[in-house]
């Protein structure tokens, strides 16, 4: 078996630089608070104030020296999944005896889950479940959880890091993207050409890759227009902070700890119909 995979070093085209957005926004929103020690370079955890109350901010960022080579570009891999889980559960445990549950903000710019043999071998699905579980458990325990999408929110990586949030907020920006699979792979799996796939994305909103189409699905609580998503200006930062404050208020006045607030869009009419009929027939 050829285990020395020559492709490993070529995982990413040179034109595709490592994204700094997760790190930049985490740093801005925490006013350069020191990173929590003990986490790997790919998982940044910082505690800061949000609306004058303590909050934890978490980002998964690229680490070109990641010991797992398939997780060097900002992907959520084995270590990232379990370390995000640890960062969230630290907060759950710390506030276990208190009614005042601190907020958790997932700063989201995740390229994808890590694709590799080691990852499958050691159960990357379980690592991502660890992270999703932690966020869902935090939400159910009463922590306000906000997902702030500043870049890519792709597939399993998004399921692990952010999709369990009470509220999702995204920047309106061409590099902000939510999807289930990259275009080339999606074309391969559905036996279509990339051109055909793109043609369908124009008429089928859930298949599209851009944030405007995604917003039409009703999953986002707010879409924010900023000047510079790569290097936020003071005004950009103020816009995002204001939105985070309002999201916190919205979550605190909402009696539900679930995800029902995502079901309102006309593009999700079938999701609502299914739930209504199930309830009628449930007994």
């Amino acid at each position: 078996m050829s285990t020395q995979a020559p492709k490993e070093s070529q995982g990413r085209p040179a034109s595709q630089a490592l994204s700094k957005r997760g790190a930049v926004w985490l740093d801005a929103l925490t006013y350069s608070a020191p990173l929590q020690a003990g986490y790997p370079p790919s998982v940044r955890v910082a505690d800061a104030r949000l609306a004058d109350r303590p909050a934890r901010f978490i980002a998964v960022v690229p680490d070109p020296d990641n010991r797992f080579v398939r997780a060097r570009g900002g992907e959520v891999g084995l270590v990232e999944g379990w370390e995000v889980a640890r960062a969230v559960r630290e907060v759950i445990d710390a506030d276990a005896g208190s009614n005042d549950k601190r907020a958790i903000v997932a700063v989201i710019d995740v390229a994808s889950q890590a694709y590799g043999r080691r990852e499958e071998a050691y159960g990357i699905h379980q690592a991502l479940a660890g992270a999703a579980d932690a966020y869902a458990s935090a939400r159910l325990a009463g922590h306000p959880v906000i997902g702030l999408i500043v870049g890519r929110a792709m597939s399993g990586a998004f399921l692990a890091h952010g999709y369990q949030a009470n509220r999702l907020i995204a920047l309106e920006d061409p590099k902000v993207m939510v999807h289930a699979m990259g275009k080339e792979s999606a074309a391969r799996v559905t036996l279509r050409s990339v051109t055909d796939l793109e043609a369908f994305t124009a008429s089928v909103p859930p298949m599209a890759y851009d944030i405007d189409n995604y917003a039409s699905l009703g999953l986002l609580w707010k879409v924010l227009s900023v000047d510079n998503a790569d290097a936020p200006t003071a005004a950009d930062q103020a816009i995002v902070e204001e939105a985070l404050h309002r999201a916190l208020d919205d979550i605190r006045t909402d009696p539900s700890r679930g995800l029902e607030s995502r079901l309102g869009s006309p593009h999700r009419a079938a999701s609502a119909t299914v739930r209504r009929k199930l309830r009628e027939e449930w007994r």
Partner: protein
Amino acid sequence: MDMQQLLERESFIELDARSRAKKLLDAGTFRELLDPFERVSSPWLMRQGIATQADDGVVVAKGTIDAQPAVVLAIDGGFQGGSMGEVSAAKIAGSLELAAEDNRNGIPVRAVILFETGGVRLQEANLGLAAIAEIQAGIVDLRRYQPVIGVTAGPIGCYGGMSIAAGLCSYLIGTREARLGLNGPAVIEQEAGIAEFDSRDRPMIWSFTGCEQRHRTGLVDDYVADDADAVRASVIDRFRAGRPQACRSERVAGFLKRLAEINPSAQATPEQVAAIYGKGFQS
């Protein structure tokens, strides 16, 4: 299994989704919700010239298991690879939500999910992904009251976002025919190259992701023969055992301890995974 047992046993894998649900429920208690005659099918496939199916590939069945109220959510791997579209996923998420609500009202409904799925239905991409997040939320919620049991029997197995959902279940049961993993082999090959993962190398794929290996490495709880009675007996045993002290996805420290023992500079082997994960995930 000797020859006589082999001849007498009823294959579970060969049963369709509806028959599987019937088999797991106590005799005579099967009642289907949102059945095919209600014709709640995918609103998105038709637009793409793809035939729909009247139940969208998921059977919701209520009844009792071991005389306790239960809902079985059986995915039909024969329709679009068991993929999760808006409707099929909403049937699962909505049922889990109602089961959790029942538990809050003192009705101890339990759930079994039959995972036979490649994950997100790419023709409904973002709505499938969003609904999988809702399935995950539903599992974590319901799991607080009653065990949520996942079964993956094959031949499709359990992939994509639904493998993360499987990773959230209180207990997982698998057969030799089923694989459990995050990324499909063709997608890993597309993203990482054929040297990293050859999607035609079936023995290699099974050696890592087959449920025999998943059981050996502690990522599946019960490894059962392809025998409908054995699957049902295993489900009943796990329900009788009650909620585990900690679910697999909650064992953060235990998994991190094992990950630290991996030498990622060498490619993974099934034996190495068994040696490390075989020690368990107690923290």
